[in-house]
């Protein structure tokens, strides 16, 4: 039975290693991979999936 405070575990999509995510992690949050430092995007939490975060230029509209 996982409690709220249990750390959320996920797999680093680049190195395959297991990463501990903050308990209050949210979908869409950017996490820095502790191993490679690459920015990872939390794609979903059920199941927990991470992907390399895309480079995004700022192009605001009206």
């Amino acid at each position, binding site marked *: 039975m996982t409690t709220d405070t249990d750390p959320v575990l996920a797999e680093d999509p680049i190195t395959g290693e297991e990463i501990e995510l903050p308990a209050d992690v949210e979908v*869409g949050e*950017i996490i820095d991979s502790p191993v490679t430092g690459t920015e990872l*995007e939390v794609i979903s939490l059920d199941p927990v999936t991470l992907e390399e975060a895309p480079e*995004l*230029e*700022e*192009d605001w*509209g009206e």
Partner: protein
Amino acid sequence: PVVVKIGGAKAVDPAGAVGDVAALAADGRSVVVVHGGSTVVDETIERLGMEPEYVESASGVTGRFTDADAMEAFTMAMAGKLNTELTALFREAGVDAVGLSGVDGGLLSGPRKSAVRVVEDGKRKIRRGEHSGKIESVNADLLAGLLADGYTPVVSPPMEGTESDGGVTPVNADADRAAAAVAGALGADLVLLTDVAGVYADPDDPDTLIESAATPADLEAIEDAAEGFMGKKVMAATEALSGGSGRVFIADANATDPILAALDGSGTTIEQSAVDGTDEDAEDAEETEAVDA
């Protein structure tokens, strides 16, 4: 031709601008009008029972998050209400205006950006489902054809957003940068009307109006002085000049005969030479654009 960017604020009251465009057109000077209207977009979103959503970007700029519902409201307010009513206002003043959005004939086109980086409660996030884009091409021939036939195009976002899967969908784009893209593509002068007289070295001291910028160093001074909203205007000016515009005027929308006054140098004039000779190309110029929060 000259490209004139007018605001789209609450109840666009561009009476001054309409009269000036009529005078220019009567003088045989071809004009392309570009307008925005973020306040009317917000009102429309609220009238449709929704909440306008603004997010903070990584660099501290506040921008609209445009999901599908907001995009629909945006198109209704901008391409529907404002563009049509403004076109009618110009026609009433004797200007043979033709209203176009950036979707029409692919006038303003570029890749859609469906994700943006934001900062929410201190957390860096990626928000998906965004409908905005980067203008990479302007259909200058469409405008040239209409201008040659004596029309005055009245242009507004949305732009034509192209998706990776070949899809085409209307997306949000900044009206100042749209005007810059059009001015660059036509090699035309650009008048950016705004609610202050021009760029001030010290925004709190009315005597520090920067009248002109002719060298990269001048431009840098302007970029440093321009804060927030004005920073966006200066960025658009730089993009216009780098894209091929000869001269950009940033001037007061509320002056009498605002456009004629602007063309006479009443506000801040930025010459092509302010970007010429710099080895940075347009992209670098954009990156050095530190827009202060």
